[in-house]
Each structure stands twice: as structure tokens, then as C-alpha cells.
């Protein structure tokens, strides 16, 4: 039985498979009680009343994004007793319904897995160097950062 902690961050253009990533954290182990998986998807209805979204293009800072995501995972490990975590962020053009981001956390206890996953998502939103450009009918624009995201990140102190 392997009990080595498993921590992975990945930035990729291609889609991910949440189930494969979650299975990689638990395979052959009997010390994990809770696995939380968060998948963030591209939505069509981001601007009610406005033109529907055609696509999002995710730009990132290739040198820094992976390093920053690794720092976020280190911070999560320092705060919660995790047996593993996987964070994957896609870049490139995505249409509504497509996966954008995946966070998987595994722990012996559910509270740690839930809190670490929420923490990673909140910090990813405000600290990982990614930017969303929206395409709508006759319009393209950069998504503005949300104050609610800053508030969500700040609750972790």
C-alpha cells in the first residue's frame, strides 16, 4: 500500500478527465476518507441580458503560472493534512460547457478536503496568472476581476 503524498499542478491546452485525476490520488491507498473534486466550466450565461458568450480565451504567464500554482498547493498542505492534491488549469479557447479548471483534494477527513479545495479555488482566482478574454456577438473584451473573488480569497487570511 503506497502512502506517499501526491501533489501535482499542471497547465495544459487539452481537456482533463476529473475521474482519472481523482482516481490517481486514491489508487492502492486505504488511508483516504474524503476526496473533493471541483471542476470549473465555461458558461454561456455569464452576462444576463447581454449577448451570449461564444467563447473564452484563457491567456496565462507560462513561466509563472505553474510556479504560483505550486506555491498555492504548498500553502494548502501547510494548512490542512492532505494526502494529495491535483490542480489543473487549461489555457486557450474554450466554448460554453468546456472544462477550465480542476482541483482535487484528498484527506483522511472531509473537512480538510472541502476546505483545502475551496481555498485552492479562491486563491487560484486571485493569484494564478491567468486572464479570460470573452468573445460575444460583435464584441470581445477582457473579463474584469471580481471584488467577490478578492473577498473569497481574503477570508483565508
Amino acid at each position, binding site marked *: 500500500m503506497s502512502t506517499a503524498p501526491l501533489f501535482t499542478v499542471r497547465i495544459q491546452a487539452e481537456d482533463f478527465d476529473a475521474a482519472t485525476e481523482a482516481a490517481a490520488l486514491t489508487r492502492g491507498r486505504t488511508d483516504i476518507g474524503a476526496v473533493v473534486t471541483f471542476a470549473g466550466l465555461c458558461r454561456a450565461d455569464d452576462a444576463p441580458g447581454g449577448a451570449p458568450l461564444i467563447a473564452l480565451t484563457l491567456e496565462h*504567464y507560462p513561466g*509563472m503560472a505553474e510556479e504560483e500554482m505550486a506555491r498555492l498547493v504548498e500553502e494548502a498542505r501547510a494548512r490542512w493534512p492532505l494526502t494529495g492534491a491535483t490542480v489543473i488549469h487549461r489555457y486557450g479557447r474554450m466554448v460554453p460547457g468546456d472544462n477550465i*479548471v480542476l482541483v482535487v483534494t484528498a484527506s483522511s477527513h472531509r473537512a480538510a478536503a472541502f476546505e483545502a479545495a475551496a481555498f485552492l479555488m479562491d486563491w*487560484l482566482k486571485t493569484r494564478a*496568472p*491567468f*486572464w479570460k*478574454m470573452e468573445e460575444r456577438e460583435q464584441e470581445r473584451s477582457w473579463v474584469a476581476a471580481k471584488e467577490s473573488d478578492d473577498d473569497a480569497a481574503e477570508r483565508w487570511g
Partner: protein
Amino acid sequence: MKILYFAWVRERIGREAEEIELPGDVRTVGDLAAFLATRGEGYAHAFENPKVVRAALDRTHARPDTPLGTAREIAFFPPMTGG
């Protein structure tokens, strides 16, 4: 020093990266943003509201008062909107 631009900062300046020799009085991230803002219309537009432009020094988040020190790479970009 190598300077990178992302998202609308990149679009306004019209380039992704450049190598710039810094004047001696440019000591902090904020000094550099103010210096860049003087380099032309696109730069002025990118830095018109310096508060909304973020920076990373050698791939680590930095603040306007962070000294440039011996850093080799700096990036300027809008607040992040990933996730």
C-alpha cells in the same frame, strides 16, 4: 531587464515582451511602471490607472514599492481572472 506584458496591458502596449535598459533612478516596481508610462501612447494607456496594473518580479507577485534589486524579469498585467 526583460519586461513581459499580458492581457490588455499587452494589447495596449502592442507587444508581448521587450528588453529595456533602466535609468538609474528606477528602483522599484512602481518607478518602472511610471517610467514605462512615458514611453508612448500605448504605454500611457496601459498604465493610465497604475492601481489596476499588477506586477510579478522574477515570477513572484510584487507590489509597487518592491525594489527591483537584481531581478531579471518583470511582468505587468491586469488583475487575474483565471479559475
